[in-house]
């Protein structure tokens, strides 16, 4: 990735933050992450929308003006999708965690709910998200041994949200990329939460599939993550990119960003 592409990436993040503040609520700006920049970039690549840039100050950077991307369809979409997904994540955290964590989540909940209500046209996706989450929690309740099955549900959830409103081919490409990335995220979480889930007796797909051989299970999981990432890259290669910058950033996230994360996870697991 070139330096100017890195600046574009940063500017998109600032743009997304500003956009979230304007369309949703100020509190929703705290829940932002670079994950949603990925979504915005993917939408830009597929719709052919190119962001315009401007310079300005904001609450987080009041002294020095920064370059930010002006509000556009992809950024608004990503901000709304982010609000919706954050709301369900908070709900999920309340169900999963205990004591103080749960209390903190409850404090955040009203803000998350308010932001999610302002998700505009995307509100119609709420039911679909709930269906997916229902299937997922049912699978976890039954303690299924197939990690791929539950990961696929989560992947489809992301795919449904992210591919919303796109036309035929674009929709299929977006759905495939997000399905793969979603499965990757689910696997990464399973690996990341492994020790904690074992300690708390929570459901963990890795522990279910490999009850006697955690090391072998981790290796298989990292292998599967690599495979998902490769398939996401295959789908990404089918996009007709509007410019080389968008392509370079998206590829960089998939090849370097996720790979680095995989490498980190493999290291931390081994050192324990």
């Amino acid at each position: 990735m070139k330096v100017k592409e890195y600046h574009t990436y940063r500017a998109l993040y600032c743009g997304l933050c500003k956009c979230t503040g304007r369309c949703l609520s100020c509190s929703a700006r705290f829940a932002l992450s670079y994950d949603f920049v990925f979504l915005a970039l993917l939408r830009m690549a597929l719709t052919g929308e190119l962001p315009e840039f401007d310079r300005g100050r904001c609450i987080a950077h009041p002294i020095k003006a920064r370059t930010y991307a002006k509000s556009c369809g992809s950024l608004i979409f990503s901000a709304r999708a982010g609000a919706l997904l954050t709301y369900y994540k908070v709900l999920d955290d309340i169900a999963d965690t205990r004591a103080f964590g749960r209390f903190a989540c409850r404090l955040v909940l009203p803000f998350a709910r308010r932001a999610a209500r302002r998700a505009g046209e995307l509100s119609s996706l709420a039911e679909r998200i709930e269906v997916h989450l229902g299937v997922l929690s049912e699978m976890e309740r039954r303690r299924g041994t197939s990690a791929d099955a539950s990961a696929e549900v989560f992947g489809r959830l992301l795919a449904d949200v992210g591919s919303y409103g796109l036309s035929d081919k674009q929709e299929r490409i977006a759905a495939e990329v997000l399905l793969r990335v979603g499965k990757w995220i689910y696997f990464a979480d399973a690996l990341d939460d492994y020790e904690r889930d074992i300690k708390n007796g929570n459901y963990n797909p890795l522990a279910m599939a490999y009850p006697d051989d955690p090391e072998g299970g981790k290796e298989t999981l990292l292998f599967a993550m690599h495979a998902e990432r490769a398939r996401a890259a295959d789908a990404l290669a089918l996009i007709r990119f509007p410019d080389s910058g968008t392509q370079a950033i998206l590829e960089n996230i998939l090849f370097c960003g996720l790979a680095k994360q995989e490498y980190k996870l493999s290291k931390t697991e081994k050192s324990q």
Partner: protein
Amino acid sequence: MNDPYQILGVSPGATDDDVKKAYRELAKKYHPDNYTDSPLADIASEKMKEINQAYDEIQRMRLNSKTTFDGNRAYSDESENSFAEIRRMINAGNYAQAELVLEYIAESDRGAEWNFLMGLVLTKKGWYFDARRHFETACYMDPQNAEYRAALERLKMDAGGTTGSYRTVRGDDCGICEICQALICADCLCDCCGGDLIRCC
């Protein structure tokens, strides 16, 4: 139909194991996956069909001759027979159907071959985590079986996809990484001066 023994290249007096071995060798050789990009794919799939039919025919003939005096043997052949049927479904591309049939088989009958076949179906589905788990179980239950081991190795090779195998992050314990680091540093310097040494980063 021609003589099924001739098609598999074994004598009619061959043991069940020999027949199975011959079938597996041929099935591996003419498997549709080996011909996905070939203009001869249709001929290969015909050949595959022929091999499957021959194997089924032999199974059936032997089953009939055995049931008369050995009920137990016939019973275990039956489960093998259903695996042959599943193999045929997989070779014909009916993965969903094969999965359904596999799911239907009782937990107690799920041996090495069941795990292997399930692994094949899941690989096609792109469920690499589960696929690898099943292949590993198959290899664990039947360590001598070359087919199972080959399937596991192949999954490991193939899962990288067409674009995913390059630009992987490696550990810092290899010499190549130091070279890469030097190159990246040089690239950063070039970037700062407005040039570009490595186009991708």
